């Protein structure tokens, strides 16, 4: 199992002299660093949107209807003359925020319940496993739709509904992981030495289960962003928020608009695709490098 500190690339091992295994940084590869850089860039632009020198995303008639890209209007204009670049940057805020909250919810609830089930076993485990099976029996999108329809289409509830979707898959993995580690020597040893459940869970299992699973968070974030985009594309996501999915739906749903100005749809699609790909790739690399087999992904 990888040491916790190595997750953070900056504190990666310095390998001296001997032709030992290559550094973690190198193992992760150039692709990993490129994708991470892209994700960092997207997140930074999202956070800095209010102070960036870009047009107000609500301002119409900056360009002509579906005007193509030109200097100063790098991504062109949309069907109401808004700046597509500015829309894409502002649109990332809801996409990323929803993705982030969803993953936090999924991992905190799914992870906790899964670990507890795997550790304590017994009836609790049976009930939890059944709930997971039930949740997984809902076609994911339908469940998200049901929740948002009934609770309201706000950032919070959209995030919650996507978070709920993440609970079962994350929980199952956490449970499986815990089952593996609960039988390990160091846990058995701790138990024999009379450590409390609480202490074993927090000190021994948590780092060994949660930290490797954090690679999953990157993958999960990508999935959540796509899911939010999907809801927005179907016009059932955050009601008055503008996210990538909404932007793509807005620009991509009429034959004539696509004919006149495909750029208004293709730019946000490109950025969304690269973001999701980067998250997936970074997550994959981390998983591959840090012991994929034990994670049973």
């Amino acid at each position: 199992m990888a040491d916790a500190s190595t997750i953070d690339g900056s504190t990666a091992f310095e390998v001296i002299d001997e032709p030992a295994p290559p550094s973690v940084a190198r193992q992760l590869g150039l692709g990993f660093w490129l994708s991470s850089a892209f994700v960092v860039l997207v997140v930074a632009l999202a956070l800095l949107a209010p102070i960036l020198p870009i047009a107000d995303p609500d301002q119409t008639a900056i360009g002509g209807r579906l005007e193509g890209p030109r200097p100063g209007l790098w991504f062109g204009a949309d069907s109401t003359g808004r700046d597509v670049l500015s829309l894409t940057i502002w649109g990332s805020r809801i996409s990323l925020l929803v993705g982030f909250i969803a993953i936090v919810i999924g991992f905190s609830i799914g992870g906790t319940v899964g670990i507890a089930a795997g550790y304590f076993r017994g009836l609790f485990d049976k009930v939890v496993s059944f709930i997971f099976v039930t949740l997984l029996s809902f076609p994911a999108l339908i469940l998200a739709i049901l929740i948002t329809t009934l609770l309201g289409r706000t950032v919070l509830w959209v995030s919650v509904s996507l978070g709920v979707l993440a609970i079962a898959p994350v929980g199952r993995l956490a449970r499986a992981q815990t089952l593996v580690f609960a039988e390990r020597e160091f846990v058995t040893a701790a138990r024999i030495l009379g450590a409390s459940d609480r202490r074993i869970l927090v000190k021994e299992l948590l780092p060994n289960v949660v930290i490797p699973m954090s690679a999953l968070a990157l993958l999960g974030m990508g999935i959540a962003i796509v899911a939010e985009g999907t809801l927005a594309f179907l016009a059932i996501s955050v009601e008055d928020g503008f996210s990538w999915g909404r932007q793509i739906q807005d620009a991509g749903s009429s034959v004539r608009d696509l004919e006149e100005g495909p750029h208004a749809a293709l730019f946000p699609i490109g950025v969304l695709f690269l973001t999701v790909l980067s998250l997936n790739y970074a997550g994959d690399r981390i998983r591959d490098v840090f012991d994929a087999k034990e994670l049973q992904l």
Partner: protein
Amino acid sequence: MLKTQSRWLAILLALAVIATACGGGSTDDAQSESGDTTEADDSSGDDDSGGDSDGDDSGGNVDESADGSDVASADDGADVQTGGELRIALQTEADTLNPTNTPLNRAPTLIATAIFDTLVVIDAEGQWQNNLSESWTPNDDFTSWDMTLREGITFSDGEPFNAAAVVATVDAFFSDPLTSLVFAPAFDAETPVELIDDLTVRFNASTPNAQLPTYFAEQIGMIGSPAWLAARNDDPSLDQMPIGAGPFVIEERVQDRSTVLVRNENYWNPDQAAILDRIELFTDSEGQADSTVSSLLAGDIDLLHLTDATPILQLRDEGDAITRIEDQSGEEFIMLMNATIAPFDDIRVREAATAAFPQSAYAEFITQGSADSAQTLFSADTPWHNPDLVQLGDQPELAGPLVESYCADVPEQCTDGRVDIEYQHDISDELTRMATLVGDSWSEFFNITLDVVPNDQHITQVTLGAYDTATWRYHGFSDPDVDSIFLSCNTIGALSINFSRNCNPERDALIAQQRASTDFDERYAIWTDIQQNLIDSFHYIVVEHTNWVVAADPAVGGICDATTPDGIALPCQNGGVVRLPQLFLTN
């Protein structure tokens, strides 16, 4: 079990004399506009000209044919082929085809006209003409009209078309809570209709009304077979299979999908019997208007009607490759402002919203030249158009001081110096774009909360007055007098047909005055005053004249061949309504 309740929702839905704007964009679909009551377009004729006497002098609306502007590649009249089958794509649907209990919007009006025909029609000059009626005779003060029917008309089920049948239909019409809402104010509450003899019926108006016959070019002039009307009381599903005296009979109908009409073999007037054997009309609820155009070009359908900007431009691009007829004399697209609740109860707020409305941006980004932007209720396609009347717009600088003074007086309606408002529209791409444009222009003066609701809720809420400002489309009647129901004080109530709930006694007086007049010039002058009154009271923002476009494969002939039984030419189309019997296919 859901039946009762869905019937009520249907009623509310229908209540829309109306229906929200800008046509069937992607998601909006079948129901989407099952609002629109209404009928034929403006371009009205003022008064009588038909059989009878009286004030025929009035004249008026000479040229200005109702078929409106643009006719591309009209049919060549060539080899008329008898028989054949036509496929027509319609923009919207109705819950039922029973005119006595469902407000029919444009598409179902097209179907219902083929099945029922109307007592009166509006001709190509915009004048009303006898159709199934033979004559109309008013009393001296125009408070009652005697209508005589033509002899020898029968319904397609063989029942005689007589005065009793007319009375039965009109009674059914006025006993329905919904349809009566629209026309009842114009008729005497006690005895709106009386049977005089076998072929004569007397209609009593609520006030002197020289325009009364034009009402019967609308839905209320569609007379159903008494046997069918009686049977439908026991079996409401018969609302889908109506029986009238028109040139076609209904063969099959799947609601929200398709309706099949076949030639009425018992048609009373052999000279004008249908040429085609069969017409399939369908509403493609999932489809997009622009892909409907593709179907026309691909030959999958023969004729369509629509109102959206994008497909209209697409059709224009095709030039002479298709037959295209445009008509802007019908409905208007409007921003309603609810005058009964804060903040739009204050004229300053209404004026500010109107002044800051982005008229030119709307024309550039939404309409894109597909229709004329509007200043008043009457487009240049109607005889009532007055180019001197101009509403505010594109002048945000006027809005600042108004909002400032309002917020000083009514701080609880304002936040940060801007008025808090809710902007309601129903779901469609075009309306979303409009909200983006308007939001951008208004954001300096208003804090806007968008309320995007499904079409039926939209209609319910607007009719109940549960909105601040909302998009709406209506005002499509053939005579402005009929349209005046939307402007009067007496149609404001729990459920309002005066949707913006703006009551103005001065305007009501003007409306009554023009109603009693038989002189076009006099009426025109009064309507100029009424329109000025609407502009000054900021009753609402008229955004755009709806452009109804009918397009057809060049093989379809006879679109402009329709006439009355007396041989008077009718418009090629009328707010998207094409008359079907004269259509034929060339080889």
